[in-house]
Structures are given as structure tokens and as C-alpha cells.
């Protein structure tokens, strides 16, 4: 459903761009000063618009409305598109996380959540829900920094997260469940968990392949960085 909607957004955005280009060319070729008051009105079917007004409308649409719409749709597509696993796996450095997650032999938290269908879709985003169009400013800034690093190839593998993972991503699903509540220390260390002073992973294990596995030249590197099927 999400996927289809995004496709529609993409098609719509492309159409807007094409339309915008056509209108731009048209607008560029229009000599506004040669449009005389007496020129024929343009028949829009429901109304007759004076030729000059129509030309100005076209110019407004081609220079302001359509670019703004295209930018919005492109942003929407980017931000929402990265909810999908393949959106994340589009970057080389994220391939190990995605490949490991889809590896039924892996025991990382990501892989277990994936193969047991605890999360049916958009698995990356589900546990890293601070990015996306409605995500917080910090995630936007981090994302921008990552994009800059990635596109300029100024990163080193293995990559290390420099921001704190928000336990809320875990608690969103687990808090309140009988199994979670049965553990006394979940309750007594609640403050530390919600304020991220103690990470869930300490007791519950690795989320993704280790930094050693993600280091070029390691035994697992080639397997982990295969293109996502």
C-alpha cells in the first residue's frame, strides 16, 4: 500500500517536473509586452481569461507553483521512501545491516525481528523511527551530515553511530507487554531506560553485525555487502 502510494507520488512528481519544464519554455518564449489589451481572451472552458492575465498565471505556475510542488513531492518521496529497507540499503554502508537482517541464520536482534515477522514491513524505520518527514530535527541534521559524508566519500568503514539510540523505539512495542512487565528491573530501571542512560541492548544483545564484521577485509564483509536481492 505504502509502496503503491509512493509510486504514485513519484509519477506525480515526474509529471509535475515535465509540465513545469514545458511551461517554463513556454513562459520564456512569451513576450509579455507584446500582449495587447485587445488580444483574444483565453477560453478556459468555464471562464474567459484575458491573454495577459493568462500568461502571468502560466508564469506564476511555472516559476513558483510547479517547482514548489515538485520539491515537496521529491522531499516527501525521499523522506517516506527511506522508510523502506531498500531505501536504507541504497547506501553501501547500510548493506551489512540489511543483509544481516534478512539472513535467516543470523541471531542479531534485527534478524530475529525480521524472520519472526515481529515487524512486517519497513523494518529499519520501525526501530529507528526518528527520521522521516515527521521525524525530529536532530534526525534531519544527522541525516544531512550522513548524506554529506556519504556523497563526498568522507567516511570510513566500519561506521559507528555517534548519536544515542533512543530506547523509546524498543519501548514503543515492548513496554506494557506481560513479558516485559514480568522483569522487575524493567520497572525499577524505568527512569534510566526512558532517559537512555542504559541501553536495552546491554541485556538483549547485538542489534546488527559487529564493527569487526563490517570492516573491509573481514571474513563476513563480502557477504554482508552484497547488493540487496
Amino acid at each position, binding site marked *: 500500500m505504502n509502496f503503491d502510494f509512493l509510486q504514485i507520488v513519484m509519477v506525480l512528481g515526474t509529471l509535475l517536473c515535465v509540465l513545469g519544464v514545458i511551461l517554463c519554455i513556454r513562459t520564456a518564449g512569451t513576450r509579455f*509586452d507584446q500582449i495587447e489589451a485587445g488580444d483574444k481572451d483565453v477560453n478556459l472552458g468555464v471562464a474567459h481569461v484575458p491573454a495577459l492575465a493568462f500568461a502571468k498565471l502560466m508564469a506564476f505556475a511555472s516559476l513558483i507553483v510547479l517547482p514548489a510542488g515538485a520539491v515537496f513531492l521529491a522531499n516527501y518521496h525521499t523522506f517516506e521512501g527511506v522508510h523502506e529497507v531498500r531505501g536504507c540499503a541504497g547506501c553501501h554502508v547500510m548493506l551489512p545491516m540489511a543483509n544481516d537482517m534478512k539472513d535467516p*541464520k543470523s*541471531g542479531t536482534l534485527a534478524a*530475529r525481528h525480521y524472520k519472526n515477522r515481529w515487524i512486517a514491513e519497513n523494518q529499519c524505520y520501525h526501530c529507528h523511527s526518528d527520521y522521516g518527514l515527521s521525524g525530529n530535527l536532530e534526525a534531519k*541534521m*544527522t541525516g*544531512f*551530515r550522513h548524506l*554529506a559524508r556519504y556523497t563526498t566519500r568522507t567516511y570510513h568503514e566500519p561506521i559507528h553511530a*555517534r*548519536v*544515542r539510540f533512543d530506547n523509546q523505539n524498543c519501548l514503543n512495542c515492548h513496554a506494557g507487554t506481560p513479558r516485559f512487565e514480568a522483569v*522487575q*528491573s524493567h*520497572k*525499577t*530501571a524505568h527512569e*534510566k531506560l526512558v532517559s537512555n*542512560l*542504559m*541501553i536495552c*541492548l*546491554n*541485556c*538483549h*544483545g*547485538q542489534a546488527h553485525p*559487529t*564493527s*569487526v564484521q563490517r570492516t573491509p577485509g573481514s571474513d563476513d564483509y563480502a557477504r554482508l555487502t552484497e547488493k540487496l536481492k
Partner: protein
Amino acid sequence: MSTENSRDDKDAQTPSDFSRREVLLTLGGLGAAVGGGAATWGGLELMVNSRQTIDSWNKAVCRFCGTGCGVMVGMKDGRVADVRGDELAHNKGVICIKGSMLPELTRIKGRLTSPKIRKAGKLMDASWDEAMGLVAAKFSESIQQFGPDSVAFYGSGQLFTEESYTANKLFKAGIRTNNVDGNPRLCMASATTGYVSTFGKDEPPGCYADADHAQCFFLMGSNAYECHQPIFERIRQRKRLNPDTVIVCVDPRRTKTAEHSDIHLPVIPGTDLLLLNSMAFVIFSEGLQDQRFIDKHVLFSNGEHIVDQAALVQFLQSYAPESVEHELGVSAADIRRVAYLFAKSPATMSLWTMGVNQRTQGTFLNNMLNGLHLITGQIGRPGATPFSLTGQPNACGGVRDTGALSHALPNGRLVANPQHRLEMEKIWNVPEGTISDKPGFDAVNLFRAMEDGRVKAALIMCTNPGASLPAAARYNAAMGKCFTVVSDVVEDSETQRHAQVVLPAALWIEKEGVTGQGERRYQFTPKLLDPPGQARSDLQILADLAVRLGHDKLITARTPQAVWDEWREVSSHSLYNFKGITYERLAKERGLQWPCPTEDHPGTARRYVEGVDPFVTKGTGMEFYGNYNYDKKALVYLRPYVPSPEKTSAEYPLYLTTGRVLEQFHTGTLTDRIAELHQATGNAMFDLNPQDARMLGVNPGDYIEVKSKYGSVIGKARTTEVSRLGVIFAAFYDAKLLINRAVADNYDPTSKQPEYKVTAVSVKRMTA
């Protein structure tokens, strides 16, 4: 027409002018965009740096249990801001709730910050010089008047290796007494005697990574889910990835471990040697043994001399499942099923701890567990190993390996062996005959010797025997009769109530040193904080005492690294050889497993295995080189079941057993001071089976008196199906309950380890 003209002029000029401006504008715009982007990026990089909540991550080791988890300690402005499991350490990033609370450990209230001397019944602040001067005077006086055996050292599996080694050397080669023992006697002495009598050498042959390969886990007397949580998590991970894996748990209680096992055998306390012998019976009677392995690598012994396999089979005839099931409390069908799984699984890993070790038959149980692996060939392959889990972070490395026990000398040597004494005298460069040929007092007998005045002065370090000894009331009183010096990190421990001098000690990362966890792995803990007040490391205290007692020429290594360098050199004269484990390597690597004779040796994950263990002769495949007197073969013993002296009776109809809980470590001196951990467990209570509770007329929340021959304890009761019918349980972390007052002090005749797990008790509901 001027407008016409001007328009024409414009038209004439526009193409070139407009396009230049346009190009400039476009370039300028682009430049501004790129500049803006770059500036934003730069700003973000700066911001990310400035917003880091951690200044540096430092590799260290958890302070608590024997799993010895690698942790990363995050420091910020000189404080511990975060602790995380080290993903590259053996524990693969997994620690437990206690480890997660390590930042709080560095800030616990009630730290001891000044030496204290008891004056007019009260502990009063004193200077180091005053306190140590008094200690040295009292020790010297006692040694002069009553001989070296009138003083003693009672140490801990929580001291650093450098500290235990130094104490052992000072007392055995300096003061010339073998009265060096400690709390490891209470937790792993039977594992040691078991391994030594079976393989000729102490310490487990396998490693934690075996859990990634085993198909059958046989957990006996181990509540690993709570006590070695990262290891049990690893077992569960194995099961998740290989659902065919079977987990068997042998425990009188339906513990969390039992709950997460496939098969739970709730044996009656004190009877489980029947189970092991019965499994051996099934293995031989059904032909499940690995005869090729036995022929090549195994000898049989009745404890006095070598016998043949037929003698063992004959011995086992009285242990048929059908004849033991009643006394054992487990059905014959279950015994047969588990014996089959154990023998025929592609790889079986046994894990055991205090339920097996803290027993009057502890050594025999260890022998038989090792024996089951030997007769089925379940050893030396990935996943196939008999693994004794240890309770403390440095019982293995610090105490077992350094021989800081009353009967032992470094690297598996024995006090009673003249050759071993001679070797150590040479290595330590002391005159022949320096080391006494008389084994010192083991834990229980050391406190009995304080009781009757044979030991006049004792230095107790990094442990709380006031709460951890069995028959606690008796031995607390005994400490009061002796000149007791207690080096401790917190005020008001139960032990300090009897101390004449109390010395403030550094805790965890307030000092540096090496710990050796359960799989022979040495790991380094760096110093990241200063100790509070005047507190010092135990090594500093020992070095000071050595100098004051006139042994400055013996104890020349007085910094952790100098001691370690001496110690690894000592090890090179043995089959423990870890000369290749230097401080430099330990600082970089995630611990190293000995043997590791050279600096380019990767360490030994699986001992006795050719190609892995440097001491195995090429072409043998496997060699139990510790048993050089027995053709380098391992020994399987004929070990008869003897009922515990604590059999239930009409007077004492229930079994009391004790243990740990997930959130607390040992007697709670550290963990119970951390709010999150204290709140998670609350005060300790008695767990009763609901049926027992009904028969006794006890309702949940009632206070009950639990009484044994050794003492009585009053506490709150709760009912739970965790307890087997006829078994009552209490955790020992809570000094307010102090359950050890009711626990029996019977001990294994070989290992001298007390039988905490079996005490016959009566239960009486207290009237309001």
C-alpha cells in the same frame, strides 16, 4: 515613440547583457548553495562533536560475576557516564542488569574512606601509618609468640590477580604459613579438585564459544539464567538458531533456567550423584559409550588404584534408573532419556556451578560429570565439553591459578608435594625449606581455628565472611576472638563488626589489574577513577604490610604491571604458561586464554586438543598431558553415592537451599546499595511450595522461623511453584535475613567446600 526606441535599444542590448548576468547569478546562486551546504555540514560536524555525551570509551571488565563480561566504560568529565557490553569481547556485547548498573557502582553511598582502628569498642578514624603500624605489630607479635601458623590471610575471588598472587607469596614464602585461603573455597573448590583428579590440571578444558556449537546442554546445579545471564543468553541464542538443541536442567527448583529448558529434572536435594551414576549405567548398558575414545584416552580408578572398565560397569549395577528413581525424585524414563540425549547428541556441553560444588560430594559430582563426558567422548570438539561455571570475577585467574588456597601453590602445584615446594622456592628465590610442608586452614577450618585461638590474627580482603560463611553465627563469633583486619570498600559490612582494624580499599576501576574468568581468559581492567578519600588498592596495602613485616626483599614487585610481569614469568615454569600475555596485549586484545606461551600465540580456546593447545604432542589428536603419571589419559572414577549428612527427619522435615538472584551479587554489599537493583529484589524472603505452605499452615506474607541444627532465621514467607515440594529456598544477598545462620557447615572431605545447598530444617509459622 521614445518607449518604442528604448524598447528597441533594450532588445538590441539584452541578449549579451542578460546572459552574462544570468550566468553570474546562476553561478553565484550555485556557489551560495554549495557554500551554505558546506557551512551547514561543518556546523553539524562541530555540533555532533560538542554534543557527545561521552569523552572516551574504555575497555574494561565487569566487576561482578565469573562470566567476566567485557564492558566499555564511557567517561564524561571524569565520571562514569555509561557502561555498555563490549560487542568485540567474548560476551558479544551482552551483559546483565548488574553490569548495566556499573556507573552507579562508582557512586554507591557508604564508601569507606579512612582507615579505622577499634578503640573502646568503636571503630575510630586513624591514619594509614597508625593502622598499618598496628597491623604489622600484631602480626609480628603473633608470629614471634605463636609461630607463623598463628596468622592467616582470607582473600577473595574479587581481588585482582596481582593482589592474590602477592598475598600468597607474602604469606607462604615470607611469613612461612600456608594459612592462605579465601571465599573461592566456598564456591569452586570442588570444581578444582574434580578437574585436577580427572585431568591432572585445574580449570575447564572448554570455552564459552562451545555454547555456539553444542546440541545438548546439560545444566546441573546452575541457575545460569540468573547467575550467569550472558552465558544463558548465549545458550538461548544457540537454541533460537538451532531449534533441535536440547536444554536439560537438573535443579530441585523450577528456576528461570529450568523454565527456559526443554527438560527439567527436579531432583531431591543432595541426591544427584544417583542421577549421574544412573546415566552412566544407562550409557554402558545400552552401549552408548564411545569405546574408541575410552580405549585411547581414558583410565578408570576407584580412587585408590586403576581398575578396568568392567569394574566400573559392575560398580554401576546398583544405579539402574529403576532402583534410584524413588530416592532421586526423577523418573527412570527421564533418566534414560537424558542419558541418551547426553551420549548421542552431536555435541554435549555440561554447565554446572554451586549446586554441584557446594556439596559434601562436590568432588565426586565433578568427577562424575567429567566422567560422563569422557565415556561418551563428548570432549575436545566444538560444543562438547564439561564446563564448571565460576561465581566470581577472579576466582579462576586470581586464586585457582595463583594457588592462593591453603593446600596449593602457584600453577596447580600442591603444598603437600615436596617437589612442588622446591620448584616454587627456586622460582621465588627463597631458601629451600622456606615453604611449610603443612597445608594451611581451609575456609571453614580457618574460622574454627580463630574460634579456638589457633589463629590469632587474620587479614580479610575484599570479602564478607560475616555474611557468606555457613553456620554464620558461629563464625561471626569466631572472628570476634581474633585480631581481625578487614580491607573493604564499604562501611558496615557484617565482617567489619568483628574487625579490630578496617582498611579502605579501592573498587573496580579505581585501580588497575588483571582478572581471569571462567574460561581461562585473562582480561585487563584499567584505572579510570581515583579511589575516594584515603582508599588504596589492596596491592598497595599488601606491599605496605610486606615492607612493615620485613619482607621488602621478597615482595619487590609493587605495581600491578611489575607483579603481572613476575607472575607470567612464574607461569612459564608450568603447563599454565601464559608468558605471552603481556599488559600491552591485554590493553589491546579482548582478553587471552592460557596457555599462551609466546607473545605471538593466539591463546588456547580448547585445552588438550592438538593444534590448539601448545602442549599437546603432535599426532595424538588429544592428550590429557596433566596426567603424566597415567600415560596422559584422563581418569573416570567409580564414585559411590553417599547421602548428605543433612538428611531430612521428623525434627527437620524440609530441605533448605540457598542461591543468588539475577539483580544481586553475593552478599549484596555492592549491588544492594544500588537503588534499581535493591528495588528489583526487595528484601529476601523464604520461597515455599504452596502445598508445603498449606501443610505448615503458612500463608504468603507470614513470618516463619526456619530452624536447623546450626541456627534459626526468621523471615517472611511467600509461596511459589518454583520450589519443589519439600524444598524451601532463600537468597543469600540480604544481610538482614542472613540465611547463612541456618545453613549447615558440613564440607566435602576432599575439596573442603561447604554444603550450602543442603540443610535439613523445620519451619514454624510465627504468631503475630
